[in-house]
């Protein structure tokens, strides 16, 4: 990946993170840590991978994305707003009565989303169904499913993982936000998932790895993954709260909002990190 393109994506990711911090502060959004860990993944997928038409959200040939880790939907909302699916002003009404942007995705309310979410472990099954439906219709779009790692403890995920492989769903790609944390602590202490890649391989999946906060690494992994027939999974190593030191330090903070007076500190920290990154 060209250096200036990576820089551009980093700049977009910075703006996405800043809006997430603003949302957390203005709306009392509780899932900032988990939303931040997924930010670079969403930016890479929405700016580098997916074929979309913001002015025609239901364009039949678009690539689909099912966000299975529904609590982190603020990141998706920010990305959709920045890609022009709806006004950025909607972000400040997140989870308010009557809002377009519900606390967990409600499909019928939000332009640009391909499925609802909220109950964990359901996304891959829906993605499989979309892929089967597209196959019947002769549409060659790709279907991405972003999953949290904690939700892989849901049995329904593994039912669906079997289906992707046994129906040879070559256009299904699972992207796992492997931040190793769930609400009550580290995944490996609560209900261990490792060796996750071996589990997926034994279910008939091809597995790729990447640093989920490094666009060069993501680029390399996506290039490899999208060049083969799926189902394929990308395990992206990430960090909860990535980019906002106050969120990174205080683990576990998955369900903690930030106060208004902390917002400017968080925004300053983000700017500083980005400047240091650019200098380094």
């Amino acid at each position, binding site marked *: 990946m060209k250096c200036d393109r990576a820089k551009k994506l980093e700049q977009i990711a910075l703006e996405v993170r800043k809006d997430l911090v603003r949302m957390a502060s203005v709306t009392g959004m509780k899932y900032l840590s988990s939303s931040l860990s997924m930010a670079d993944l969403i930016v890479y997928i929405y700016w580098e991978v997916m074929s979309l038409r913001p002015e025609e959200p239901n364009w039949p040939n678009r690539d689909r994305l*099912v966000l299975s880790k529904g609590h982190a939907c603020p990141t998706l909302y920010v990305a959709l707003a920045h890609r022009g699916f709806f006004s950025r002003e909607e972000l400040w009404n997140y989870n308010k009565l009557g809002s377009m942007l519900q606390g967990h995705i*409600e*499909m*019928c309310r939000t332009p640009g989303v*391909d*499925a*609802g*979410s*909220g*109950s964990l472990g*359901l996304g*891959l*099954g*829906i*993605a*499989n*169904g*979309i*892929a*089967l*439906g*597209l196959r*019947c*219709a002769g*549409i060659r779009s790709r279907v991405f499913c972003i999953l949290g790692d904690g939700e892989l403890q849901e*049995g*329904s995920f593994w*039912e*669906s993982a*079997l*289906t992707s492989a*046994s*129906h040879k769903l070559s256009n299904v790609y699972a992207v796992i936000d492997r931040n190793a944390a769930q609400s009550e602590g580290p995944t490996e202490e609560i209900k261990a998932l490792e060796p996750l890649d071996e589990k997926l391989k034994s279910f008939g999946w091809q597995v790729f790895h990447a640093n989920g906060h490094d666009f060069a690494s993501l680029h390399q992994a996506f290039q490899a993954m999208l060049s083969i027939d799926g189902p394929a999974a990308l395990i992206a190593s990430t960090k909860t709260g990535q980019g906002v030191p106050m969120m990174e330090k205080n683990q576990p903070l998955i369900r903690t909002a930030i106060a208004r007076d902390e917002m400017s500190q968080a925004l300053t920290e983000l700017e500083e990190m980005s400047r240091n990154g650019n200098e380094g």
Partner: protein
Amino acid sequence: MEEKALLSPKDAVAEALIHLCETDDRIVVLNADISSCVGLHDFTSRFPERAYNLGVAEQDLVLTAAGMALAGKIPYAVSYASFLAGRAYDTMRNAVAMPNLPVRFVAVCAGITAGEEGAAYQALEDIALMRALPKMTVLVPADFQSTRRLLLNSLSWNGPLYIRLGCIPLPRLYGTDDGFPVGGGRLLREGKSVTICACGIMVHEAMKAAAVLARQGIEAEVIDCYSIKPLPVMLIQSSLRRTGCCVVAEEHNIIGGLGSAVAEIAATTCPIPIRFVGVEDRFGQSGSSEELQEYYALTHQHIVSAAAQVWPLRRR
């Protein structure tokens, strides 16, 4: 019709699905490893590319159906009532009902018709679960013909739909040309003394009860409430106003089923005394469905005695 030729509501599924597939190319049929039980093999050989066995995985069955609906298909998802409405409830709620997707759930071997399989298979609370889901339509037909018509009519219905089908042979109630709109009901017998609302196998018991009651001078009005949600409100209301009392009969827990639905209408628009014939908040058990009907007090005699109790209390 001869005894041998009796058909169950479940028997209508395979042929209706073939007919539907011939009519509309958006239709796909998914099941959770119960093709043989529902007789889907003919369907599968005729439409191999539109038949999916998702394996022993009801949650995945519902999720895959939801995804296919999102991609423009009209999926019919077939499984046992108990494991569909029970085990896969959360997937039905979140992945289908909330986004109001046109997935049709065909729930077979419902209630005590699962017979010898025992309590685990006998969903006696599925109507309550499904009825409480916003957007969900709930149908409980009483014979082969009405099941067939309702399955065919379901094609043009908006949103998700749950059709609960027993698997025991039942006498024929309707002709091939009778209409069965979703949201409708059938006035099977007119009478001015007591209204009997019933669904599924209990419609047959209600008709037998009405004959017994007639000999005692009580003229029962029998309504086949095959559409539990939406309920045929006008039909029921006008009958309740005429008779002033009601018995509801269903092969389901008395909590949350047709009885509750009728009582909600009566309580808010025309308060009258009601008696409920159903399973008294218990689980099922193994036995033939005839034995279970006796054991759980789901026979015409129980409807007769409920009517005899409620009739003197009628409101005029």
